[in-house]
């Protein structure tokens, strides 16, 4: 079993998070691994049901996503989250939860200027937000805090979805989350590794 990791997409609505994540999901599946996709909108219909878009509610929603991702990480299952996740602090808390559970957090910032998003407006949400029909809309009437040091930045105003996805996939190989052809998986589960560490410690090798 490989190490758990979470590909955490963040960015404004319509910035390409879901579209890129589908390519990344396909690459992970190609390696014969399971992958759990936690789409922000879908999670809002289940464990975040009833939460709105105030800062408090958004933080609670993202925190739940992070906790779920950390549990999957603990058991070595790759996770993809695709949610706006606008606040830096709560994203950093999620990173802490995931790494403490033994996973790797790969933050992917889907960067796109507002003009392009308004022009794109696939779901018609920006039009409604600008007209005041949707309140607390990130980027229009609610803040978005871009990450300081994301593992990957996808400039989705300029890059194609395939180009952005490739950047994410390359990073997953670079960080050892995915294995190149010929590379073999870690031979130990977490429990076995603990046992071997104990044995090597007794022999003075650790």
């Amino acid at each position, binding site marked *: 079993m490989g190490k758990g990791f979470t590909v955490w997409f963040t960015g404004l609505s319509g910035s390409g998070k879901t579209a890129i994540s589908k390519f990344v999901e396909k690459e992970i599946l190609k390696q014969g691994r399971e992958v759990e996709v936690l789409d922000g909108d879908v999670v809002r219909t289940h464990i975040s049901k009833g939460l709105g878009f105030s800062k408090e509610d958004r933080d609670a929603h993202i925190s739940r996503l992070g906790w779920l991702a950390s549990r999957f990480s603990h058991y070595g299952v790759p996770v993809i989250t695709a949610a706006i996740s606008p606040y830096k602090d709560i994203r950093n808390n999620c990173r802490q939860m995931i790494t403490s559970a033994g996973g790797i957090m790969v933050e992917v910032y889907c960067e796109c200027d507002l003009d392009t998003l308004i022009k794109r407006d696939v779901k018609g949400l920006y039009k409604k937000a600008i007209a005041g029909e949707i309140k607390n809309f990130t980027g229009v009437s609610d803040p978005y805090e871009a990450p300081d040091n994301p593992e990957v930045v996808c400039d989705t105003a300029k890059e194609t979805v395939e180009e952005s996805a490739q950047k994410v996939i390359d990073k997953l190989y670079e960080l*050892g989350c995915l294995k190149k052809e010929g590379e073999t998986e*870690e*031979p130990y589960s977490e429990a076995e590794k603990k046992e*071997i*560490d104990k044995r*090597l410690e007794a022999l*003075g*090798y*650790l």
Partner: protein
Amino acid sequence: MALFSKKKKKRVVVIGIDGVPYTFIRKHIDSGDFPNFKALLEKGDFRRMNSVMPCISSVAWSSYMTGCNPAKHNIYGFIDRKPNPFDMFIPTSVNMKAPTLWQILSENKLRVVVINVPVTYPPKEVNGVLIADFLATDLRKAVYPQSVFDKLDSIGYRIDVDAWAGRKDKDKFLEDINYTIDKRIETAYWLFESQKWDFFQLHIMSTDRINHFLWEEYEADDPKYAPQFLAFYKKIDSFLGEMEKKVSENSEFIVLSDHGFCSIKKEVFTNYWLEKEGYLKFSKEKRSGLKDMSPETKVYSLIPGRFFVNLKGREQFGSVEPGAEYEKVRDELIEKLPTMTDPETGNKIIRRVYKREEIYSGPHFEQAADIIADPQNGYDLKANLNQDQLALKGSLEGMHTYDDASLYIRSRQIIGDSLWIADLMPTILHLLGVNIPEHVDGKVAV
């Protein structure tokens, strides 16, 4: 006529006795403790042999099975590091980058039986049977093919002794070690008789274990434990005698160890020294591992005596520029490490310091430590963190030595002036009439 003149096929049997010093065997042959080994000397040649740097079992047996220096097989210790992102890992057969003796023999349609040789876990497919080493936790996952598991289970085969008992309860440890060797010998005889094979190797790890935990009692002639220590070795001697008799005359019988042993005066904590000298820094008060080191770190170390420069572009938080600054740091270490002394006695701790290019060459050179320190006998280099002194006497009693490994070959004269453990692989291929791959560093020693 061919029917009558056909010679029986030549086969090779190897018994690995981990960590048994040449000088120790000689001494006890002379004192009459090892009559079977004495009888072997009358039939063959017995020589002192060099190990490999660093002289620990995983590295030495990897050089044995591949005929290569570590930069070709990629195994540098029982623990290693990935520089970026920084992580520690246990090298296993997954990391072995050079073809092993048994892989080559299998490809040449020869059948092999390989029992318990270090760095064979997880087991790879062979033309025969392979039982992996003590880096396996579950016997079911340690065997190839799976069909041998039930028999091993019914024998009560143990992968290794409980080394914690060696530290905490020596009586329990001795009971365990005797049980483990009895079961290993039973397993060896079963496979020897029941399998078809051209190459048969049994590895005995328990010799290394008993040396680690009872070497001082042996040297001090402890009234309780020294006789039990020698009784264990007499059991090994008897087994060698019995096994040798089973190996037909036109086949070859080889016994070797991978390094020598001596008693430990002190365990020495190289990361403590690096911290005191200002090379290693931590961002946290409490350090759970090297992953907590600060980006200001210039050098960190891994057991035993492997020093890594925190090099920019290679390490995750590298601080030392490649080129002139890297060389400056290495030169400083080469100057300072030999001045390290035992705080109590003033004795020098380090015998010699090597730049990696002096001792390694090959495609996996980049995984090597930048500086490798060879300690004086008695100073066991450790890399534990959170130590409050440079050196102390711990519960480990014996440590490895480089130049006191041993090699016995029946019915052949051993040749070569600088015999080392990597010579075995080409020697065995030669004895079995198999071509030696060009990349191999060792030389045929018969």
